[in-house]
């Protein structure tokens, strides 16, 4: 059933999950269980409703905004997300991903689907939410340990390059 994902909500045209207006896809399922998580209802992997890639793409194509994959943690579903990410790329749209893993943890996994998914991703917002590092003035992230990693620039320069806001 790689064609189906469990989706909490598709937000069409939000300004809080990355630059510009974006289509944000909130996927169900997360095991990080960060204390202070503002969305614990997304933790169970059977939460939300099943949606096919076609159904999701219908919304993405209608709105023609860049896409943010968030949740839950989308990186639990790298395999299943791959075909969606390809379709988004084919439509000429960019991708941001929010994850509770750090980029280094993901790289250590050495999982082919994860590597391929990140290759299609522009920016990875990484790391768990840490309540004592919470700072409401941070842009597009919750706690100061989290990073907005510009994956393309990082790859080109061989080191972690943070995405430059504005």
């Amino acid at each position, binding site marked *: 059933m790689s064609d189906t994902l469990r989706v909490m909500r598709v937000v069409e045209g939000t300004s809080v999950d990355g630059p510009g207006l974006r289509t944000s896809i909130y996927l169900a399922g997360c095991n990080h269980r960060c204390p202070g998580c503002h969305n614990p209802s997304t933790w169970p992997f059977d939460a939300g409703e099943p949606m096919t890639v076609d159904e999701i793409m219908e919304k993405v194509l209608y709105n023609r905004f860049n896409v943010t994959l968030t949740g839950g943690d989308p990186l639990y579903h790298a395999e299943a997300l791959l075909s969606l990410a390809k379709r988004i790329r084919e439509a000429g749209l960019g991708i941001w991903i929010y994850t509770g893993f750090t980029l280094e943890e993901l790289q250590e996994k050495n999982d082919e689907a994860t590597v391929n998914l990140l290759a299609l991703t522009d920016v990875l917002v990484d790391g768990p939410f840490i309540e004592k590092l919470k700072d409401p003035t941070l842009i597009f992230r919750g706690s100061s340990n989290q990073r907005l990693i510009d994956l393309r620039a990082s790859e080109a320069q061989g080191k972690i390059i943070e995405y430059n*806001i504005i």
Partner: protein
Amino acid sequence: MIQVVVKRDGRVVGYNEEKIKAAIRKAMLTTDLGEDEALIHKIADRIGARGTERMTVEEIQDMVELELMNSPRKEVAKRYIAYRDQRSIARKAKTRDMFHEIIEAKNNDITRENANMNTDSPAGMMMKFASETTKPFVDDYLLSAEAREAVRHNYIHIHDKDYYPTKSLTCVQHPLDNILSYGFIAGHGESRPAKRIETASIIACISLETAQNEMHGGQAIPAFDFYLAPFVRSSFIEEIETLEQLTGKDLGHLKNVELKDYTKKELDGLEGEERLLQHAINHTVSRVHQAMEAFIHNMNTIHSRGGNQVVFSSINYGTDTSAEGRCIIRELLNSTYEGVGNGATAIFPIQIWKKKRGVSYLPEDPNYDLYRLACKVTARRFFPNFVNLDATFNQHEKWRADDPKRYLYEVATMGCRTRVFENRFGEKTSVGRGNLSFTTINLVRLAIECMPIQDREERLALFFRKLDNVLEIAARQLNDRFNFQKTALVKQFPLLMSKLWNGGDKLKPEETIEPVINQGTLGIGFIGLAECLIALTGKHHGESEDSQALGLKIVGHMRSRVNDFCEQYQHNFSVLATPAEGLSGKFTAKDRKSFGILPGITDKIYYTNSNHVPVYYHCSPRHKAEVEAPYHPLTGGGHIFYVEIDGDATHNPDAISAIVDLMDEHNIGYGSVNHNRNRCMECGYEDASADLHECPVCHSKAIDKLQRITGYLVGTTDRWNNAKLAELNDRIVHE
């Protein structure tokens, strides 16, 4: 012999002797001696015979009084007089109650009809007294019977009815070059042509200020950048001249040196002439910045119209690509970003960015950098809004990139949305023109009246018949008002007619404005398309394609009828997507009285503005754009597209440009972005949270929450009327 009687409301009716008899009888019955039928007959006969052919009610009552005084029944006379007094007081009681409401500075829908007006101030009260007592005069003496009835039955609303007797016009786009290059006379002061940016910015204020007192609507500058640009250069030349004096050198060749941009730079490392030139540039930029700050400050503090309202001012800019024009735009945006006083957001002027491909929108455009700055500014300060010069209906075939007066062919808008462009009697332009008056149709009431009809086709057919009928009444009423307005003398609007209105300068003070008034537009507006569609089909146009098709048919029909009226009456009629501040609750309250609470229709205390998707309806910005865009080409009198965004826009100026992109893709004429902006009045802390009651930094409870109402920003909601407050509370973000 009395033939006809003129009633108090001006209507003329046939004389009826029985009315006199009844009044005398009534007075007699309150006395000990009771009625005397013979005396009643005698008095009535004498009055009927002695009176003149045409008499007023008061004159007849005076005669009755005299007859009774001369009769043996003096005590009846006393009762009759006492009765007359009571009736007279009762007639005035309504006025009295209304006066008391104003005097006590009560917050209600009379005093809060207009959120920009301080009706608690003496001047504001005075104006409210005048306004409220003028309206019945207009009803009684200036409106036709059918227009009066249409208002009474809640089918139409005549905007600015209190100004009707003054013959004033609504608004104008100022050709500021006329004033800046030739000077003008206002009040008791004569002003010479401007020579430097400081004076030019002050004169711009005075022009707006003075014209506001000659009109009943807003004031706008259609090409702020183009008009002020020459004074950037003349200020720069002044700086060079100062340096000539200081250094004793001849720097004449620098005065007209070509500059790519006026950019401030440190003087370190610069030598000789280069250093002098940069010094002159630095000083010029500082002066321009200061002048723009002063302009904004003045527009927020100088009161007009008897001192209770600041000017409803708007400025359009963004397309001047000269170094001087760009300097104006940049410094205006910079000082807007900084805010006024201790950094508060300026409520006025409404600023409008002219978005044009090839000029001020795409990354390769000369003013792209300033467009990006504009998005950053609007993310924090709500302005500028965006007018889309690329929309098919906003283009002009005569526009040329190398024409120094190309702004004449660029559409400019009043901040509130009023749009004047097409012209049957001269060049298509916004400049030197404006609206004459508006009348708005209550689409919801027409639709509710058709609800009992079960068959859809019949129901819709009846609706369109009713709509046609009301459209014709509105057109006749606007034509009547036009015919009244055109009798105004040029001297009644001295600045407007001598310097601002197209062709006005060719007229003499004692002449009427008739030869030039046709440059203005007559607007037929509409309100509550959403509720109208719910009444007709069960769904509004945001939630059903079928309703959307009907909505477009309705507004398309209005547009085509309005074109007919242009031919029939030979005026510039246009359809307006009405902004409805005081109106949004009035129509609903009355309809509710007639029809009760109908779900989705009269269950809120306001109607949705014009063609908007209801504020409570959840939909994405893309969907809202797709649904509302097709109404823009149909509403030449003005329209606006709003998106409410979630989150803190200052963190995401790209979200603002994404909305401008929506306007570009969907052929939307004018739009703006709403978002939350709170500011602590104590320490200046700002954020975008939805419900901030206490400052998280200094814990002050004095939080200024900025909101937009019918296009204007209002810092406090104290002056909002109940219907608008209800609408605000229902607003949801579009995501």
